[in-house]
């Protein structure tokens, strides 16, 4: 019991880390659900890494990293949209090009500065244990904004995931809502990078939601599972990091990936189960008709 509670009761930085981590989990669960449903994993990954030059430049000129991340994300989304619309290339080619371009640009900027290696580690892996109240408040505001956006757009987002043409015909502009969805993912990445870093935020985006997708039969339930898995990962990740003196951000993401594989294995064992009588009844009516 001590092992589970003391690290948090005796260290305020652990409590801050837990709060920030849970907020990141909620934001990532909501955005990640749509990343998975819409098959946007690659764009999520690219955003998470493509913000690097923005952050690097911001730190270099003394701006908050979050501003740089926002500019980097905007450049990324704008570039992808432009290439996809103005050429015959599919979006994954555009995403890949910008992803590599932005990443290398980031590395080049970072390599120009000798005092930058510490900053680089911080950018890539976050500094969840050093998170302050202002950063937590920004994270809280962003998480609330993301939740509201997802609630308002739940119908168009569902239609868009089901069939973009259907969304368009139903009166919800598929381009508009697709962009709102990208915007939501970008905000998630931008505000979460301080906590788990640009390399690892992608894990928080897809691992909990992916595990949720394996279990859930409805989208709301999938999101709820994702929040639960994300929060659990934050808690156990921090504990493991505290007791074994490991990198905190990486420990958290490690736990979420582990949870995904546990769910995956259980799911595969369960799928060998005997079908429910209800399901058998369907098979029967089908063969009769």
């Amino acid at each position, binding site marked *: 019991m001590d092992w589970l509670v003391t690290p948090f009761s005796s260290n305020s930085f652990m409590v801050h880390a837990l709060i920030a981590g849970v907020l990141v989990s909620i934001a990532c669960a909501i955005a990640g659900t749509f990343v998975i449903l819409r098959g946007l994993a690659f764009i999520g990954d690219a955003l998470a890494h493509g913000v690097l030059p923005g952050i690097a430049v911001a730190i270099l000129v003394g701006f908050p990293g979050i501003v740089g991340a926002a500019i980097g994300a905007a450049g990324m989304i704008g570039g992808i949209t432009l290439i996809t619309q103005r050429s015959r290339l599919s979006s994954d080619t555009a995403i890949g090009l910008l992803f590599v371009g932005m990443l290398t640009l980031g590395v080049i900027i970072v390599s120009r500065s000798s005092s930058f290696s510490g900053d680089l580690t911080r950018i890539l892996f976050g500094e969840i244990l050093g998170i302050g109240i202002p950063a937590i408040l920004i994270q809280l505001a962003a998480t609330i904004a993301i939740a509201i956006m997802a609630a308002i757009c739940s119908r168009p987002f*569902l239609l868009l995931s089901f069939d973009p043409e259907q969304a368009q*015909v139903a*009166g919800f502009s598929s381009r508009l809502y697709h962009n709102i969805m990208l915007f939501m993912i970008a905000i998630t990445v931008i505000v979460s990078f301080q906590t788990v870093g640009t390399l690892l935020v992608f894990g928080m985006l897809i691992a909990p939601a992916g595990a949720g997708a394996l279990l859930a039969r409805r989208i709301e339930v999938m999101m709820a599972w994702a929040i639960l898995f994300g929060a659990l990962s934050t808690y156990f990740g921090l504990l493991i990091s505290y007791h074994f003196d490991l990198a905190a951000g990486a420990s958290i993401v490690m736990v979420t990936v582990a949870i995904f594989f546990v769910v995956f294995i259980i799911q595969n064992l369960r799928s060998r189960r005997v079908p429910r009588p209800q399901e058998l009844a369907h098979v029967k009516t089908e063969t009769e008709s």
Partner: protein
Amino acid sequence: MLKQKQKVKDKTDAFTLSRDTAPYVQARQLSIGYSNEVVVADIGFELRHGEAIALIGTNGSGKSTLLKTIVGLLPLVRGQLSVLGMPPGSNPRRIAYLGQFHASGFVLPLRAVDVVRMGRFPLHGLWRRMGREDDEIVLSAMRTMGIEKLADSQLRSLSGGQQQRTYLAQVLAHQADLLILDEPATGLDAGGRELYLQAISDELRRGASIVMATHDIQEEPALCDQVMLLARRVVALGTPQQVLTHDTLLETFGIVVFGDQKHVHVLEATHGHNDKEQSDRRQTRL
């Protein structure tokens, strides 16, 4: 060709006669296609309240292109098209569309009932809550397609035919004034087909109008007031009896089986987008 021109001309005259009874869909000298390629030129037809038209033709003949233009997914290339008295795509509340492909439907954790409920979204927009009345309409649409027992089943666990019934139930749940259906009977078994044909005639009786693309030249056209044969141009337009003749079908499909000798004569089997010969012919015809 002459025959076709004559028919188009007759149709144009008909427009002037029926201007007071506002048509649900009205196309004049309409060219459809993609930005740099006209797929079908010079389409003229008119569909009134409670009427149905079947579009028949091979793959790539322009059926889906026409349907997508009517619902506003594709901009029209030339000519005029009004849908429920407005430009295409401006009246989602009154138009239901069943497309041919549901790209990502399989990864979604969705129950069949969730899919059918989506049919009510255009009526409620972002905000308005769905009430008990909506639930009843959704259930009744599922009953019409014989899938009420599958309501809680995962969409991805359903067979192709059951999924098609689900999509049809979604369209019925919309209770739209205009139904645009792209090969709606695909994958349906005999039972599903019967329910679907019944549902279509009920919708027509209710006063809805229907534009459907189909490969069926019997049952579905029999419910329709008009048939349009397409082969990257309008081969024929008229009542099913007028249009579904030996000659026009030969021209549309290029395959006709004579008697029991099974002598097959192929004129043109496909109307593919990249078929150069086909596009050359189209050029000369235009």
